[in-house]
């Protein structure tokens, strides 16, 4: 079995705040295979975006990123130098952000915003040094005969923008919202990436063009064999687009599996709640909060299940640390859940409520916690990894990632 394109294990990101330590991403593990569309779904503030920014090392100094491993095509992203990381950003891994109005530079032509990616990551033989770029920007302007510019025009055509030569010379405010997001997609394709991280790519757009833009991203990534990490709060979008999905809640992955498994056979109470909240008919509201209660405070987050205050099924084990259970019988993919209800000794009635918690359940839980922490301490693979990873996980070098490397030190 080939290695996954992106292999993230035990990623934890925290921020030092005035009130204490805020854990924005808590020990998450996932793999993205080549050509796969992997979704991360959750409410705003659950840590989805921080996950993406951590992988890209785009957080500012305030954030600390730790992980057993963040491996992309065999390269440990957390230990490479900043300049190597720069050649990956925008090149091998590119990003699409939420709002095309604010994520495009208002004072630069569309053509140049795409062309600069081509110039920095492609093989067009144009100078990319600081002074060359400054002269191009403030003195000469980008030559429309340059290869990077012509490639930019081609890319605009690829993403379906009419009159690409003319559009390339225009500024973002001269385009409609949907067109702007197409420009952002072209920009993301410009470096010939293997992975596109799309962070809520359609949330800021009109509902009427949402589907178009999603299709554009999916069709192009399929055409060019690009994997996609799609971050969204919208389960509907996930169902339409993703191969596998992770459900994120309060900085942790609650349930991970194939889209069909997650939708047809959800095991986690939070996932169930989410599925129940999908509006049946077109609804103006973006998120129907049928799950009562509020997300727990992520500052000095207590151990135990973060969902327990809102969970209908909560029982006495729920303030113990969570462990991961693999759901058997999922034909499609590994399906994992972090919920104490899955403990093999806990008895659950037909309604899903816990009937009794025998002593064996507690003992089994303690054994699992011990096993997980032992494996974590090994620096190896945590048992949260899927089957394929477990098979070869032991032989992997354990880089004991330098946590301090995660932030964007020395930026500016």
């Amino acid at each position: 079995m080939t290695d996954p394109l992106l292999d993230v294990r035990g990623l934890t990101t925290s921020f030092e705040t005035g009130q204490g330590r805020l854990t924005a991403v808590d020990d998450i593990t996932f793999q993205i295979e080549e050509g796969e569309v992997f979704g991360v779904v959750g409410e705003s503030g659950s840590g989805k975006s921080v996950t993406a920014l951590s992988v890209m090392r785009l957080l500012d100094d305030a954030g600390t990123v730790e992980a057993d491993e963040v491996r992309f095509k065999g390269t440990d992203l957390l230990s490479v130098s900043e300049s190597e990381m720069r050649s990956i950003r925008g090149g091998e891994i590119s990003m699409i952000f939420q709002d095309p109005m604010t994520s495009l530079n208002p004072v630069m032509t569309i053509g140049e915003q795409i062309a600069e990616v081509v110039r920095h990551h492609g093989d067009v033989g144009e100078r990319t040094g600081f002074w060359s770029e400054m002269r191009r920007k403030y003195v000469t302007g980008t030559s429309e005969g340059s290869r990077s510019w012509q490639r930019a025009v081609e890319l605009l055509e690829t993403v379906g923008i009419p009159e690409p030569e003319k559009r390339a010379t225009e500024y973002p405010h001269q385009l409609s919202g949907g067109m702007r997001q197409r420009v952002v997609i072209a920009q993301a394709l410009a470096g010939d990436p293997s992975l596109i991280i799309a962070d809520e790519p359609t949330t800021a757009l009109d509902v009427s063009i949402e589907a178009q833009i999603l299709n554009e991203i999916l069709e192009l990534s399929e055409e060019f064999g690009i994997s996609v990490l799609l971050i969204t709060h919208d389960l509907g979008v996930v169902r339409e687009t993703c191969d596998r999905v992770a459900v994120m809640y309060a900085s942790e992955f609650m349930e991970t599996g194939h889209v069909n498994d997650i939708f047809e056979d959800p095991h986690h109470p939070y996932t169930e709640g989410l599925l129940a909240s999908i509006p049946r008919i077109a609804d103006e509201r973006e998120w129907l909060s049928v799950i009562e209660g509020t997300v727990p405070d992520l500052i000095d987050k207590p151990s135990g299940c973060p969902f327990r205050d809102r969970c209908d099924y909560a029982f006495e084990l729920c303030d113990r640390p969570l462990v991961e259970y693999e759901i058997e019988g999922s034909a499609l993919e590994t399906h994992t859940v972090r919920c104490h209800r899955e403990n093999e000794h806990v008895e659950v009635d037909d309604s899903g409520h816990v009937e009794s918690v025998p002593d064996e359940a507690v003992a089994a839980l303690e054994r699992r916690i011990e096993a997980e922490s032992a494996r974590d301490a090994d620096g190896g693979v945590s048992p949260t990894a899927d089957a394929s990873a477990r098979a070869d996980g032991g032989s992997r070098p354990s880089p004991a990632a330098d946590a301090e490397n995660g932030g964007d030190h020395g930026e500016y």
Partner: protein
Amino acid sequence: MGLREYLLKRLVHSVFVMLFVVTVVFAAVRSIPGDPARLMLGGDVDTATLEALRAELGLNQPLYIQYFRWLRRLLTGDLGESIRTGEPVLGSIVQVAGPTLSIAALGMVIALVIAIPTGIISAVKRYEIEDYLSTTIAFFGISMPAFWIGIVLVLVIGVNVESIPTFGYTPIDEGISPWFRSILLPSFAVGFPYGGILMRMMRSSMLEVLNEDYMRTARAKGLSSNLVLFKHGLQNALIPVVTLAGIFLAVVLGGVVAVEIVFGIRGLGRLLIGSINRRDFPLIQGTVLLIAFVFVLANIVVDLLYTMINPRIKYGGGD
């Protein structure tokens, strides 16, 4: 709207602005106590002589007649004659405009050269030593008036550095270097407060820009931090600074007037103050008109610059 049309429109607009300014000045100088004729003749004079002079100068006519007569001459480009010397106002102004404009221009250059880099550094190194240092210096600039800075400069630099004169002005046709040295200290005195204001603006505007999404996009493209800052950030950060630079130009012009006194330079400022003391109405009006003209012109330049660096604005404003 094309550039030409825009300029034309702005110029027409400027004419009205200046007309308004001179009208206000016309009324204002005549409302301060003091009669130019009496000031000219000195202490004890009989009423008949006084009245004769007043009639000669046209001061005995109703105000509106005086106003329209002045305005009519103005339209033909004639600023009138000085009450005191009888010399044409335009000539007197042109004679002394050189030092004032030189100081103002160099003062602006000094302000920009100081303010833009320190503003950027301050924003990038926010809450670090560089930030505190430049913010403190800017604070001094903002809180000290130009003439005070001038006095300090004379005492500190002028006294110790011989090659830099502290008194008088050397015209540019006597050599670039002597000219430059003669205006260096006054320009610095004028530029420092202006630079302080601009630096604070540059800092806050750059801080805002640093948080913009497109800066994150630029980093996500794999650009170096310098490119992100200067290619993607700088132009955006300059947009508000340029606008305010035009508005706060008054700080420079006001500063020059006071600084000329400190450095003993015969410029527009001294001419203006002298003419106010003597109630030399035509000379006051002419000088103010010129200053207003410079201000308006500078603002047109600033607006053009603004349009250049902000593609979202078409000539004549509006998104």
